[in-house]
């Protein structure tokens, strides 16, 4: 590709339970490059928000539905990073 996009998107990252405790916040606004994937957004979070305690593989949801790390994010998406489920 000759031209790299300089557009950026804004994504709301939601953290729950132990992950909110690890990061010290339950909601972060991330500014990310256009075309970013959900897994890359988590890597960004690890680097930029002292979230290196997050395990290498985490459960993800985009806009309330489970999503793969390869899922391409769009402006305004809500990216949830889910600890191992423990309901019931």
């Amino acid at each position, binding site marked *: 590709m000759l031209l790299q996009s300089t557009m950026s998107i804004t994504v709301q990252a939601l*953290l729950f339970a132990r992950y909110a405790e690890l*990061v010290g916040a339950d909601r972060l606004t991330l500014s990310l490059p256009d075309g970013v994937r959900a897994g890359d957004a988590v890597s960004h979070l690890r680097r930029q928000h002292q979230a290196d305690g997050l395990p290498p593989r985490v459960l993800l949801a985009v806009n309330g539905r489970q999503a793969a790390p390869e899922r391409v994010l769009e402006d305004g998406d809500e990216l949830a990073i889910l600890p191992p489920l*423990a309901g019931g």
Partner: protein
Amino acid sequence: MYLTHQPINLAVLIAQVSRADHGAIATFTGAVRDSHAGRKVSALSYSSYESMAEHECAGIVRETEAKWPVRVALMHRLGDLAIGDVAVAVSVASAHRDDAFVACRWVIDQVKARVPIWKRETYADGTVAWVDPTAPGGIVMSRPDAEASRG
């Protein structure tokens, strides 16, 4: 609505699924146990990604009612619970008991596998842990300085 911060009323769930041609009603209740991973539990708190949890619960009910000739009621409690409190309840009605038992078991297994809910246990010695079925021993200790950020 499948989540509540109020005590779960089993009679309401059973009434939701009762019908004249349904002769069998199987009801599962999960209650707060006083021990976990060899520790004495004194209190427990559930939190959730509520919008996704409601969607997943609705999907579980819909799928169950498509797989078996049953009617399903489901409720999971959130917030602070005491020992013995009902945390989750499933009520399944069908014409005969076989479908009700099988579908009831399937619903609670799906809830545990799919619904984004987390459990934070406080032990009698004052320590606190997150329940994590994937962790050795089933728990991950909470940071002692993290009270302000608990989700």
